[in-house]
């Protein structure tokens, strides 16, 4: 299959509207192939957003290898996101997990048939909503001037001076985290007024963390479109009067963190 192509699926949308089809027609997919819309075998809805990808790069073993390569992963992630973001500007889309790859278009059509009801429910739940990210940072290392700038107290042994300094630093860090707790509680109040769902991501650490400061909250909220402005503005003030804290709001994003298909419990009605 070295020269064959596979079908990469980005997202699912409800209808093949003219606007969606027109936008999809302008897009280039993760491997440079045109983005297309596929409909199920038996009906006309929902539609899957797909493009061809080369099997040599996207079959299982190759994908495993490539995904370990951060440069390759970044290119894939940005291309995947570019397609979804462009389409999300026109309609509600249900993003699929990165690197959702099928053997061919027919398998995608069959998948749409098999999951039609779940897709409709998921799309309905997300309709008119976007995702906003909220990150809280404790800025830099807390260093109270008294502990660092004052000359060492000659009356203290080096060991005791060290312990005193450590204690002062710990107190400062403790204060910063108490302030972060206060900000997080303010954000929770804002979210109760403006958001309908909440998701927690891991705090950002390591080489890719953008900083400055230590990320201590990395959350996502599902927000109705008409609440985005208020949510953002109020959240940007959540650290007012709390020195050493910074809040960062990202988005609006397509609802990646809330794109789940929850099958109804057997024997129960699928009430929203």
């Amino acid at each position, binding site marked *: 299959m070295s020269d064959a192509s596979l079908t990469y699926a980005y997202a699912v949308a409800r209808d093949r509207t003219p606007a969606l089809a027109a936008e999809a027609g302008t*897009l*280039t997919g993760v*491997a440079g192939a045109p983005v297309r819309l596929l409909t199920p075998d038996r009906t006309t809805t929902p539609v899957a957003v797909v493009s061809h990808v080369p099997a040599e790069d996207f079959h299982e073993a190759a994908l*495993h290898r490539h995904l370990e390569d951060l440069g390759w992963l970044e290119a894939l992630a940005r291309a995947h996101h570019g397609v979804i973001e462009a389409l999300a500007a026109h309609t509600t889309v249900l993003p699929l997990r990165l690197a959702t790859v099928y053997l061919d278009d027919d398998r995608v059509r069959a998948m749409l048939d098999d999951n039609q009801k779940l897709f409709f429910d998921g799309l309905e739940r997300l309709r008119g909503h976007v995702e906003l990210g909220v990150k809280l940072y404790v800025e830099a290392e807390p260093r109270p001037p008294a502990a660092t700038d004052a000359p060492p107290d000659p009356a203290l042994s080096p060991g005791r001076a060290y312990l005193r300094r450590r204690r002062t630093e710990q107190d400062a860090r403790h204060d910063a985290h108490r302030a972060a707790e206060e900000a997080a509680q303010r954000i929770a109040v804002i979210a109760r007024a403006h958001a309908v*769902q909440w998701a927690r991501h891991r705090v950002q650490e390591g080489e890719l963390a953008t900083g400055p400061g230590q990320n201590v909250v990395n959350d996502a909220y599902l927000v109705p479109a008409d609440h985005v402005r208020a949510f953002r503005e109020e959240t940007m003030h959540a650290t007012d009067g709390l020195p050493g804290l910074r809040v960062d709001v990202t988005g609006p994003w397509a609802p*990646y963190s809330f*794109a789940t298909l929850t099958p109804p419990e057997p024997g129960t009605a699928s009430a929203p």
Partner: protein
Amino acid sequence: MNPPGNTPAATTGAPPSQQQVALIDLLDRLLSGGVVITGDLVLSVADIDLVRISLRALITSISERTPAPWAAHVPSEERGTP
């Protein structure tokens, strides 16, 4: 081994207002979000999970157990109603 997406998103019809998002914010969403479909995939869900584990080792340098300082105040679930 051609990197995918040689065409930057900004030239593929995305809104001109779009700023390039931070990679870490994007990976937070793309590696843990999005619908996971079971079944007829080239790469199985279980395999994706394995990939994610190795990627996370790359992306983060500190143990997942590093506690949030106010852990007692947040719900234990990862998703919920605010």
